[in-house]
C-alpha cells in the first residue's frame, strides 16, 4: 500500500492524472504507454490502491531505467584520422527502442562513427550523447549502457564460451550469482547452451558471432551496436540472429544500431542513414527513401564495345557499375519499351530493377554499394588472420 501523501515532491516524480492506470516507477509515475510491452509482468509488478484508483507498482530493474531523450544524439561531429577526413559534420538521432541502420560502402566512415559512439575514439568536433550521457565526460556511464559487437571477432578463442562470458560479466562488475544467471540466459538466447564448456577456437564463424552477440547482451545494455554483424555468415544464421535481436527490441526496448553494406539487412530497420565518404547523404525510413530517391534501373551489358559506347552516348546519365555493365535510370514502362526497340538486339544481358535501397545508393553516389572486391578482401583478411595465429 502506498499512501497518497507519502510521496516527497522530488525530481523524477511525474504524476499523470490523465492516464487511466499510472505506473509507479521508483519515484516516478508514468502512463503505461511509456513502457514497452513485456516489461510489466507478475514478478515485477504489484497491484496497489492509490487514491481510490487501481495502479500498478512497477519495480523496475536498474538497467532499464530510462532517461528522457533519444538513445543516440550526434550533432555536427567531425573526425580526422591519419590526416584523412573520416567523418564530416555528421548529425543524427536514434530513437529509443528503434532499429537504426547505417548503410554505406567499406571505408565510408561507419566504423569510425561507431568507435566515437563507443568511446573508443574522441571526436575532433561536435556533440555526441549516448543513452543521455556525453561520450567524453561520462564515458563510464556510456560504456555501461552499450553493448558492442565488433566487425572482427573479439573473443578469447583459447577460453571456453562460458569463460568468455564470465570474463565479460566480471569486467562489467556483475556479482557472482547474477553473473551465472546472465550466462545461462544469454547462452540459451543464442542456442549455445550445449557448447558451454567448449573452447571457442573450435567454433564456426556463425557460432562465434552468436557468442559475441550473447556477450554484448549479457549486461543488459540499452543500446546495442553491431558493426557489420553478419559478415561471412550464411543466410540461415543471419536470419536467426536478426530474430533474436528483434525479440530483444520488442521485449525490453533495446535500441539497435547496425552498420552494414548488406542491403537485405537493413530493409527491416525503422530508419536508415546512408553514409558515404564521411558524410550523411540520406536519412529516412526504408519506404521513404525508396519512394523519394528510389529509381528503377535497367542493368545492361552491351554486346560489343561499340554498342557500349552507343549506350553511353544515348544515356549520359547512366552509371558504370563495372567496366562492362551499365545501370540506366529507367522511368516508366514506356521507357523500357523505347529502350528495347532501340537497343534490344545489341545487348548481351539485361535486368530490370524496381526501386530498391541499392538503387537509392546508386542514384545518390553513382556507385554500387558493394563492389565485387569486398568479398575478396574479406577472404584475404581472414586468411591472413588464420596464418598469423600462433
Amino acid at each position: 500500500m502506498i499512501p497518497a501523501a507519502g510521496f516527497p515532491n522530488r525530481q523524477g516524480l511525474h504524476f499523470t492524472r490523465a492516464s487511466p492506470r499510472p505506473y509507479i516507477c521508483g519515484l516516478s509515475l508514468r502512463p503505461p504507454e511509456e513502457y514497452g510491452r513485456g516489461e510489466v509482468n507478475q514478478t515485477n509488478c504489484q497491484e496497489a490502491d492509490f487514491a481510490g484508483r487501481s495502479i500498478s507498482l512497477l519495480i523496475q530493474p536498474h538497467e532499464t531505467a530510462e532517461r528522457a531523450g533519444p538513445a543516440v544524439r550526434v550533432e555536427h561531429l567531425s573526425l580526422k584520422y591519419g590526416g584523412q577526413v573520416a567523418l564530416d559534420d555528421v548529425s543524427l538521432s536514434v530513437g529509443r527502442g528503434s532499429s537504426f541502420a547505417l548503410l554505406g560502402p567499406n571505408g565510408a566512415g561507419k566504423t569510425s562513427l561507431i568507435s566515437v559512439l563507443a568511446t573508443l575514439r574522441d571526436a575532433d568536433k561536435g556533440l555526441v550523447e549516448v543513452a543521455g550521457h556525453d561520450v567524453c565526460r561520462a564515458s563510464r556511464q556510456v560504456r555501461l549502457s552499450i553493448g558492442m559487437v565488433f566487425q572482427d571477432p573479439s573473443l578469447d578463442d583459447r577460453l571456453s564460451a562460458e569463460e568468455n562470458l564470465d570474463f565479460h560479466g566480471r569486467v562489467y562488475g556483475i556479482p557472482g550469482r547474477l553473473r551465472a544467471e546472465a550466462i545461462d540466459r544469454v547462452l540459451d538466447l543464442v542456442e549455445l547452451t550445449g557448447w558451454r564448456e567448449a573452447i571457442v577456437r573450435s567454433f564456426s564463424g556463425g557460432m562465434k558471432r552468436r557468442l559475441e552477440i550473447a556477450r554484448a547482451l549479457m549486461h543488459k545494455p540499452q543500446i546495442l551496436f553491431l558493426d557489420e554483424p553478419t559478415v561471412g555468415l550464411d543466410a540461415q544464421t543471419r536470419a536467426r540472429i536478426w530474430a533474436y535481436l528483434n525479440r530483444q527490441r520488442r521485449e525490453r526496448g533495446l535500441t539497435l544500431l547496425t552498420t552494414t553494406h548488406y542491403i537485405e539487412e537493413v530493409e527491416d530497420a525503422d530508419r536508415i542513414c546512408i553514409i558515404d565518404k564521411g558524410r550523411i547523404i540520406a536519412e529516412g525510413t526504408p519506404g521513404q527513401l525508396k519512394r523519394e530517391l528510389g529509381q528503377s534501373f535497367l542493368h545492361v551489358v552491351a554486346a560489343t564495345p561499340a554498342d557500349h559506347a552507343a549506350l553511353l552516348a544515348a544515356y549520359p546519365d547512366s552509371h558504370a557499375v563495372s567496366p562492362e555493365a551499365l545501370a540506366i535510370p529507367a522511368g516508366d514502362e514506356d521507357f523500357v519499351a523505347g529502350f528495347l526497340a532501340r537497343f534490344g538486339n545489341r545487348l548481351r544481358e539485361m535486368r530490370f530493377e524496381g526501386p530498391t535501397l541499392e538503387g537509392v545508393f546508386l542514384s545518390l553516389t553513382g556507385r554500387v554499394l558493394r563492389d565485387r572486391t569486398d568479398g575478396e578482401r574479406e577472404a584475404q583478411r581472414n586468411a591472413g588472420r588464420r596464418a598469423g595465429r600462433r
Partner: protein
Amino acid sequence: MSSFLPILRGIHGVWLREIMRATRDKGQLLGGVSRPLIWLLILGVGLNPYFRGEVFGEVRLVLPYSYLQFLFPAVIVLNIMYTSIQFAVSVIWDREFGFLREILVSPMPRWAVLLGKVLGGATAATGHGTLVLILARFADVTLTAPQVAQAIAYMFALSFALTCFGVVLAGKVRSFEGFGVFSNTVILPLYFASSSVFPLDPSLTRTQLVASYPEWLIMLIYANPITYAVDALRGILINFNQFPPHIGFGLVGIGMIGFFLWALRSFGR
C-alpha cells in the same frame, strides 16, 4: 564504495583470465621448469668445483658458499625475467586479435585493466620463480619458512616491476616475431651483466676490482638494476650480499611504480 566493488571484480576477472591462459600454455610451463634445471644441474654443477675465489694463483676472496648456492637466487631471477617479459606477448596477442577492444569498451578504467593484467602476469612469474625454490635442496640451500615467505613476497614485487616493463616493450613492438628476438636481446644481456653467474668481491675496493675484471664490465654491473635485484634475493635466500640490500628493495619498489605508470601511458594507445 559502490563504484569500487565492480572495479575490484573487474580486476579479479582480468587477473583470472591471465592465470587461466598461463596454466593452459604448456610451452610456457615447460620452459619454466626446464630452464632452471638446465642452469642449475648443468651450468651450476659443472662449474661448482672451479668456484674457489682464486685470482692470479692466490686465494683472495673466500666465499662461504658453493657455486650452486651462489647461482641459485640468480636462476630464480632469470626464470622470473623470462616469464614476466614474455608476458608482453599476451598484451600483443590481445591487441592483434581484437580482444583488447572488448576490454576497452568495458566500463573498467584503463588503469584497472592494466593492473589486473600485470597482477596476473606477476602471479604467473612468481609461480615460475617458486618452482625453482623446490630445487633448493639440490642446490644445498636450506630454507626456513620465513625465508620462503620473504622470498615469495620479494619475487612478486620483482615480477610486478618486470611485467610492467614487458608491457612497455609490447607497446614498442608490432609483431610476435619481433618480440621473440627483442626479448632475448633484453633478457640475456641484463642477466649476464648482473653479477649473477660470477661474484664481485664486496671487500675489494674499486681499484682492486679493476685488477681482476675489465673496467667496462664492472661499469656495466654497477649500472645494471638487475644486479641489485639478484643481490637482494641472495640476501634473503643465502644471507650473502655484495651490496647493501636496501638498494635492491628500493629499485624494485621504484620499478613497480615507475614502470606501471610508463606502461599505463603506452597501454591501449
